């Protein structure tokens, strides 16, 4: 067998794009190239509807694994590029199928061809027949049968203008759109289970997600900060090039705690978080905020309280988890490997700041009245001035 492999990459939604298609394809190709080493032995080809990577068999599995974390890829296969020679393709099929067969047992297979090079003299069904019959002639005595509907093994052949590739497995990708194709957004990251999942969801819709964390030090220790570094690094694994903004929030919390109505505290904290996030997003040209809010999950996430925080900014606010239940969010958090970090026992808020019974239906006029009681603008500016900016790629 050849010591070279070809990874065939398919994408779904990009295929639906009209005149923008090239832009999406270029973005995906750029993201793929960034995730793989700059080895001399890696060659990229972009025939219509596919991205092909030619590389050494020794690294093919390892590098292909990285494609599982790149939004925009619907599936990929590791195959072998060869001449469109029916005998050679059938020989490869036999080489793959024979070890899977058990003596005396029937084994179902089929051949599927995609022929984008219309100049090739045979049609796809004809190619299926030519290769399939050659394989059958060798393996039917051992129990091989053709069965398209219940195939245990599908030999796939893609004959395109840039070459012919033969493969037999498809790995599912993340689907969605390539990161960067939709623009930049800023996610309010708390260290809990939800916000990293929300960030991931937006990355899968083509956004490059940056993060903002509101830090409670020294009311709490550095544990929350460290946790957010870990979470942003994991989520950044799906996109790259993110920034993390760490905003010192304790003075604002103290001011709200000391001056405002106890029951309104949490909504007031969040209104300030949204305002600060809005400033950062505007400065760095990120036309959207992302939060992990899910309707009704906690007191601050009722319809009224969500409206009370939303109205402090005119920016797009994306809440991809809004209609998800906790089980679904946890399942996704486990899949993207943020869950174990999120449940590390680090408090995200000191109990001194928490009200005994938070308001569930806040009134904007009362909140505004509370906000007249402390110097919000001054404290906001100070927090922004003392903000730390971290390049997540370097973590």
């Amino acid at each position, binding site marked *: 067998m050849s010591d070279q492999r070809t990874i065939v990459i398919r994408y779904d939604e990009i295929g639906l794009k009209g005149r923008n298609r090239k832009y999406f394809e270029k973005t995906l190709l750029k993201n793929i190239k960034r995730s793989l080493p700059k080895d001399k032995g890696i060659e990229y080809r972009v025939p219509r509807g596919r991205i092909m990577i030619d590389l050494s068999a020794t690294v093919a599995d390892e590098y292909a694994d990285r494609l599982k974390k790149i939004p925009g890829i619907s599936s990929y296969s590791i195959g072998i590029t060869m001449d469109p020679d029916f005998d050679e393709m059938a020989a490869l099929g036999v080489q793959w199928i024979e070890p899977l067969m058990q003596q005396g047992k029937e084994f179902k297979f089929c051949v599927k061809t995609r022929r984008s090079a219309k100049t090739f003299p045979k049609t796809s069904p004809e190619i299926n027949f030519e290769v399939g019959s050659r394989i059958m002639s060798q393996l039917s005595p051992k129990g091989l049968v053709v069965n398209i509907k219940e195939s245990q093994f599908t030999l796939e052949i893609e004959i395109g203008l840039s070459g012919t590739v033969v493969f037999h497995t498809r790995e599912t990708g993340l689907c969605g759109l390539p990161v960067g194709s939709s623009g930049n957004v800023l996610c309010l990251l708390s260290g809990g289970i939800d916000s990293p999942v929300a960030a991931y969801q937006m990355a899968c819709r083509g956004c490059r997600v940056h993060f903002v964390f509101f830090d409670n*030090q*020294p*009311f*709490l*220790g550095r544990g929350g900060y460290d946790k957010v570094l870990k979470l942003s690094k994991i989520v950044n694994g799906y996109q790259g090039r993110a920034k993390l903004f760490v905003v010192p929030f304790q003075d604002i919390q*103290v001011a709200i*705690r*000391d*001056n*405002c*109505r106890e029951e309104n505290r949490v909504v007031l904290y969040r209104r300030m978080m949204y305002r600060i996030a809005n400033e950062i997003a505007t400065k760095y040209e990120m036309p959207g905020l992302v939060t992990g809010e899910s309707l009704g999950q906690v007191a601050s996430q009722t319809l009224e309280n969500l409206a009370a925080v939303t109205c402090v900014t005119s920016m797009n606010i994306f809440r991809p988890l809004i209609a998800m239940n906790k089980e679904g969010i946890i399942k996704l958090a486990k899949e993207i490997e943020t869950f174990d970090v999120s449940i590390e*026992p680090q*408090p*995200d*808020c*000191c*109990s*001194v*700041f*928490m009200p005994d019974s938070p308001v569930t239906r806040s009134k904007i006029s009362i909140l505004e009245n509370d906000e007249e*009681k402390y110097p919000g603008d001054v404290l906001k500016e100070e927090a922004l001035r003392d903000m730390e900016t971290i390049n997540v790629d370097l973590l």
Partner: protein
Amino acid sequence: MIYLDNAATTPMDPEIIAWLQDSMRDQFANSGAVYGIGLDAKNKIEEATETITAALGIPSSHNLIFTSGGTESNNLFIKGLCSPDKKTAYSGLEHPSIVETLQSFKEFGNEPLSLLEFSKKGRLDLSCLPLLKEKRIRLLCLSHVNNELGTINEPVLLISRLKNDAPQTRLFLDGVQAVGKIKINKSMWSGLSGYSLSAHKFHGPKGIGLLAYDSKLTLNPQLHGGKQQFGVRAGTLPVPLIRAFAKAVELAAARQQETEKHLLKLHAYLVEGLRKLDIPVLINSLDDEFQCPSIVNFSLPPVEGEVMLHHLEKQEIYIGMGSACSAHSKEPSKILLGIGLTEEQARCSLRISFSRNNNFDEIDKFLQALKSSYQVLLSTFLKGTLDR
């Protein structure tokens, strides 16, 4: 940096670091091997054992088992001797490695006897000992020095009273906080069934502890897979760590009197300083002859201990606490609740623990930082006084 959390762990003595480094290079051979360098390693363990027994006055009636630390020593002795059905008792103020080990017997229907109601002063009131006889308790487990309060259960006194009031009850002491800080009375060994130590509490390395136990007892091993250490604890012996342990014990014992004197001065200076601070401080630890001078525990209600800790951390002053303020729950210290503190007092507690490295200047800086942080935090923690 001012480090005042020496009950959590101590910085390693540079002399022991060098000693350990040399030993890691030189005594790499397996002490169970039959060739020369293996025998050399074995000899080094024997030397270390002699050093330890000499430093602590451990008689030949007791076996020494090297473990990974205090937690393992406590588990090994208690489970090895009493699991699953022997009756046990504890004061309720012990480290979780004793409390939770004893509690694990519950699944066999063997509930340990808590003597918490006799422990309100932070140490066991010996008037409860006849109860052990009545309840047929086989093993009493106590801390020699309480890890949060620094209160001492005096072994010699305990042993003589036990002999009289509950002669069938054996005594096990967790000595992790005691060694190097207070005098180890050599006459205690004859009445002690087991005693645990951990090197990192007296400037040695982490990952090495010791269990000294009465060799007449049969301990069931908790780790299987080798005949090392009387068949009680399987596993290749970490020769360099054992040598470092011995060196640390030797230094701690040699300096004990001098260290204790120094700690007593620091303790008195801190307590006086706290009282003079002009803020309402509640001293939870004691000031009598049965108080280990290395630990001072106090509360500053309503300011929560964890918040104060982090404010001091910002000034590079590191202290300990018994409780946490997280909105998502850690419960207040069971030890502090056990001696009758309210939840708020327990939540607002802090623990200062000294080593021989600390000095008065550090205490002055700590007190200054404590006062200024308290003044900053007080208004935030006061409830019901806001003008709305």
